[in-house]
């Protein structure tokens, strides 16, 4: 005990943060069950936020991936004025026809491929198997525009396209559903009264982010589609693939001008068709996921708030329970700040433990979620750091009031507390 002492009685000591953290960990560990129940709100909040964001980002990445797999230089011309997410007004407006395709191909600079697409959903039957799938009336240019090779068999012959022959190319899904492991080439399938021969099978493309199976379709010549299914000469949608040399924005404007002309839209009227470029399609699709992610994250953030209130509640109980302990600490020379720090650190330790458990829970749930939606699992370090920081903030904000209450206790009142 030979330490020399400063002469003034109010000499200050060094900060004691390390000891305070050790003390807080011990206090938390001593009431392990209570601590766990206290932080459960934060665990669920952080876990939910992280899971939501992981699934949301996975979906977004997957959508972008899908759209990229369509080809970045693709434009899609649809009838009707379509806006994001809302339905189309098609039906009252005229569809396209084959002349529109030719006009685009010939008059718009930089257009590589133009493909007609008309589609409907139908039940396809082969033997005693059936499968509801998308019937797409198109031609070989569709495969070119989407850069989608054939896995087995062949594409349509020119003669088949010209005459609208009953020939079809199966996506992977109907091929598997209708023929199991067997080879479908040369087999016959039926939908409605049409029976057609399978001439080829597409390579697999996989599920899209929104859960739609891109392989779930059957291609038939568009003339066959028109004659036997739609009963008109229309083209539902025009798919335009651009050369790499041309700006999509430029081509889009050109097509809009051309189509206004062809459809005789006067200058003061709005378009009765829409040209989407891939960026718009991406933002439309990711828009849906980000709105959903935002909503769910908001709900999750509220549970984090509730978790914080839970921590505050237990810290207030703890301060009351430990009034005598606080009295002793004050008596042996703890300053207001040291007592405040002790309880604040305890609240922060609690919420950080909750945050940590929540991060692992969120990663686990996010993994399961991305698996279920078959979207990529790419946990984002940034969101983990944010969640961790957020739970620290919850601790600081909701721990401060109880800690201040402890620190402001009068030493003698605290010592006498029974």
């Amino acid at each position, binding site marked *: *005990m*030979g*330490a*020399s*002492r400063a*002469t*003034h*009685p*109010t*000499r*200050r*000591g*060094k*900060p*004691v943060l390390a*000891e305070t953290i050790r003390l807080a960990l011990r206090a938390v560990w*001593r009431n392990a069950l209570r601590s766990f129940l206290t932080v459960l709100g934060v665990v669920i909040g952080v876990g939910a936020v992280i899971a939501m964001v992981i699934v949301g980002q996975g979906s977004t990445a997957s959508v972008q991936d899908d759209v990229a797999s369509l080809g970045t230089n693709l434009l899609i011309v649809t009838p009707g004025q379509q806006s994001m997410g809302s339905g189309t007004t098609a039906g009252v407006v005229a569809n396209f026809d084959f002349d529109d395709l030719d006009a685009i191909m010939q008059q718009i600079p930089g257009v590589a491929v133009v493909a007609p697409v008309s589609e409907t959903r139908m039940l396809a039957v082969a033997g005693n198997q059936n499968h509801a799938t998308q019937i797409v009336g198109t031609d070989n240019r569709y495969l070119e525009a989407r850069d989608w090779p054939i896995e087995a068999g062949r594409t349509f012959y020119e003669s088949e396209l010209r005459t609208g022959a009953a020939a079809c190319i199966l996506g992977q899904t109907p091929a598997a559903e209708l023929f199991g492991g067997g080879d479908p080439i040369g087999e016959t399938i039926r939908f409605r009264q049409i029976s057609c021969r399978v001439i080829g099978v597409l390579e697999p493309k996989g599920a899209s982010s929104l859960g739609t199976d891109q392989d779930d379709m059957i291609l038939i010549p568009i003339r066959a589609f028109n004659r036997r299914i739609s009963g008109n000469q229309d083209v539902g949608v025009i798919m335009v693939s651009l050369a790499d040399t041309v700006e999509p924005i430029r081509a889009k404007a050109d097509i809009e001008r051309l189509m206004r002309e062809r459809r005789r839209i006067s200058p003061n009227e709005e378009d009765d068709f829409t040209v989407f470029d891939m960026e718009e399609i991406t933002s439309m699709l990711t828009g849906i996921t980000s709105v959903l992610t935002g909503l769910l994250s908001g709900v999750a953030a509220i549970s984090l708030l509730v978790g914080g209130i839970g921590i505050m509640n237990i810290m207030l109980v703890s301060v009351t329970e430990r009034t*005598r*302990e606080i*009295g*002793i*600490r*004050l*008596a*042996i*020379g*703890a*300053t*207001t*700040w*040291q007592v405040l720090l002790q309880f604040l650190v305890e609240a922060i330790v609690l919420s950080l433990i909750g945050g940590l458990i929540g991060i692992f829970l969120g990663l686990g749930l996010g993994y399961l979620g991305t698996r279920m939606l078959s979207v990529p699992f790419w946990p984002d370090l940034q969101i983990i750091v944010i969640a961790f920081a957020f739970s620290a903030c919850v601790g600081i904000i909701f721990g401060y009031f109880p800690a201040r209450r402890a620190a402001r206790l*009068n*030493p*003698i009142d605290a*010592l006498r507390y029974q």
Partner: protein
Amino acid sequence: MSVATAQSDTPAPRLIELSGVTKVYGTGAGEVRALRGIDLQIAKGEFVAIMGPSGSGKSTAMHILGCLDTPTAGNYRFMGHTVSDFDRDQRALLRRNYLGFVFQGYNLMPRTSALENVELPLIYQGLPTAERRARALDALAKVGLDGRESHDPSELSGGQQQRVAIARAIVTGPEVLLADEPTGNLDSARSHEIMALMTDLNHTDGITILMVTHEHDMADYAQRLVHFIDGRIARDTPNTPGQASAG
């Protein structure tokens, strides 16, 4: 011990000086005047017993002397500093560095080993772990508890717990040890052991001791007896330890 005093040329340094100290609890009809004007000087190295019936204000005086409570009016000077002007944290630092407390109910941290209890004031002083441990072990040895460092308070007898409390109070090398009924929960044999220990600290380490008690044979260990009655000092007499026990 190397307790260096700054005022080496002042004769008989006044460690503690209370003048006109009053303490009033509550207001209006419920007002309780616990201290009605106390003047008291205590010199360095004294062993003072504060006595009096319950409600006489002796505990209140002790709490004010220990900076656990503040006077309503009057002046309290400690080592020349006007403590009555100190703010909350300055009082905390004064308690930390210059005062040690021993209570009737021991007031040890539960589920915390004897060693860690004794280390606690040193943690607040910000000492490094190794030095803390060494000094805490020293203090425990001094109160005769070597070998019990790792025991929890619940594993120690009352007398042993009070020894831990004394070790905790002296581990910082304080000027003053304030003991509030330190033997109130102990049997006679244990009480005398504790008093012997405190006398020893007073003699060998020169620690000033202020002890509140209502037991005459405990007060008899002190060199000076201050009697409180109705919030005032009624008698302030010197005492020769070991002689008054018969009367």
